[in-house]
């Protein structure tokens, strides 16, 4: 919403260069962490569109993530559909599911919406857990085809995955920015303030809420499809659980729930932390890393509830 200054352009350029070089400089586990970080950053950005801007705090994004993952995987395994097409199909189906749940929930706000989203996601998870056609609790193992861009599989190196997910993340950021600076962004913020105010301003609240949910679901599903092609195994317990949804919310909240880049920052802090602490501390199944994670979340809510992004920009402002 503000014009880009020359200084911002240089900083942006430097960051971009760094981002492009980074995957080449780190070890495979680091690349893995980078990939997971980008996946969650993308989901966080998608969450922001409905949560940060429109005030629809969804704790059920895992449902869309999972629907995306399952759709592309199922289409690939049953009909030999390219994952690239399956990805789009997953997005569409997710959007439709989002509209189906979003419409009846049009009047729900705050806590009520949050719990409805949890209820929805749990219903989806339970169904998938019992649906033989998609492997029920055992999930789907995506076949390891010959490594190629067309097949969306790379066996020898994680690098292509790194760059693809970064491109996806960029797409999500662009979409988010477009939304935020357009009529829709203004209208969503009005909706967040109050349905009455929005209506008086001429906003069709039901319609705009649906737009937000559907866009959010589409992007989240894309991330899910990517995840499926990367990990090559999905089951309801890994892609559709509440913990995934909560993680997505945290990423957005920690970074700054009302900003475009916030979730990227949030993911950059939270995901490496949880991945590395799991690797170092969680190996005995003791869950020590999760103890710290829980404490961290609590602390963030108490001391930095509006996220880190605000603090960073404030710091930058002060240095001018």
């Amino acid at each position: 919403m503000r014009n880009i200054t020359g200084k911002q352009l240089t900083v942006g350029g430097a960051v971009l260069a760094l981002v492009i070089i980074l995957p080449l400089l780190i070890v495979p586990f680091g690349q893995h962490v980078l990939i997971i970080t980008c996946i969650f950053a993308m989901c966080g950005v998608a969450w922001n569109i409905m949560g940060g801007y429109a005030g629809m705090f969804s704790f059920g994004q895992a449902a869309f993530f999972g629907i995306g993952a399952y759709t592309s995987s199922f289409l690939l395994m049953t009909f030999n559909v390219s994952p690239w097409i399956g990805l789009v199909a997953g997005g569409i189906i997710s959007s439709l599911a989002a509209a189906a749940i979003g419409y009846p929930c049009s009047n729900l706000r705050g806590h009520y919406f949050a719990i409805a989203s949890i209820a929805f996601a749990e219903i989806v998870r339970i169904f998938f857990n019992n649906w033989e056609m998609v492997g029920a609790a055992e999930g789907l193992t995506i076949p390891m085809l010959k490594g190629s861009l067309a097949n969306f599989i790379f066996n020898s190196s994680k690098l292509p995955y790194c760059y693809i997910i970064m491109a996806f993340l960029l797409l999500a950021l662009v979409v988010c920015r477009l939304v935020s600076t357009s009529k829709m962004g203004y209208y969503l913020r009005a909706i967040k303030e109050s349905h009455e105010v929005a209506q008086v301003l001429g906003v069709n609240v039901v319609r705009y809420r649906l737009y937000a949910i559907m866009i959010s679901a589409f992007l989240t599903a894309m991330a899910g499809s990517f995840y499926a092609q990367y990990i090559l195994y999905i089951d309801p317990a890994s892609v559709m659980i509440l913990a995934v949804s909560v993680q997505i919310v945290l990423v957005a909240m920690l970074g700054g729930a009302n900003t475009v880049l916030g979730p990227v920052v949030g993911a950059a802090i939270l995901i490496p932390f949880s991945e590395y602490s799991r690797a170092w501390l969680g190996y005995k199944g003791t869950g020590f890393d999760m103890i710290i994670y829980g404490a961290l979340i609590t602390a963030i809510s108490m001391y930095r509830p509006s996220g880190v992004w605000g603090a960073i920009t404030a710091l930058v402002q002060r240095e001018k």
Partner: protein
Amino acid sequence: MNASLLLDVQGVSKYFGGLRANEDISFQVRGGQILSIIGPNGAGKSTLFNCITGFHRLDKGRVLFKGLDITNRKPHTIGKLGAVRTFQIAQVISDMTVLENVMTGGFLRHVRVRDVRLNAEEVLAFTGLMAKRNYNAQALSVSDKKRLEVSMALAMEPELLMLDESMAGLTTVELREMIELIRKVRARGITIVVVEHVMEAVMELSDRVLVLNSGRKIAEGSPKEVVADREVIRAYLGDRYDAVCQ
């Protein structure tokens, strides 16, 4: 200025269970007029606004705007037709700046963000909030918030502006400024209906006054006529005062 019939309220009734919030209320507003709706607390003024603008379903009656039947239409469609209302407690969008708030209204009439911004700036210059355009809306004083609400409405290029107690809680100076603002708005060609308690404003601004009491219309006329009306006096001050006045 258009002297045609802009708003035609016919026999509007609204009940909440046994409570008759509005009972058979009818009135007309011609283009370019300022109509004030007054009455003791609980008379049903805000309910009437809600009925006209689609926030309540009518139990009886019709509302015609520019000849169109807008009875029970969804609230968000009313703005597009040209009627905008404000709220008793000024509702603005807290996490936006003043300018962004006004722009949100402007998107109803303009497509390109640049046009919306220009329109918003013009409105802010008109209402005197230009200097504060980058303030966070939350940080404004009560008086400025009301001014902002009016600005948001103006950005929607309304033909009819409905103000719900825009004078409440203002200091003497702020009151003066608000009265001036409303005059300016009317001079721009916009018809205005206000719900008001502050009699000073009512007397100064109104072409016509409507008095409600216990859900019913008990008087209608010029400000002078209405103030002298016995029923009005009785409604506001009670039977004993009326008896004393005899």
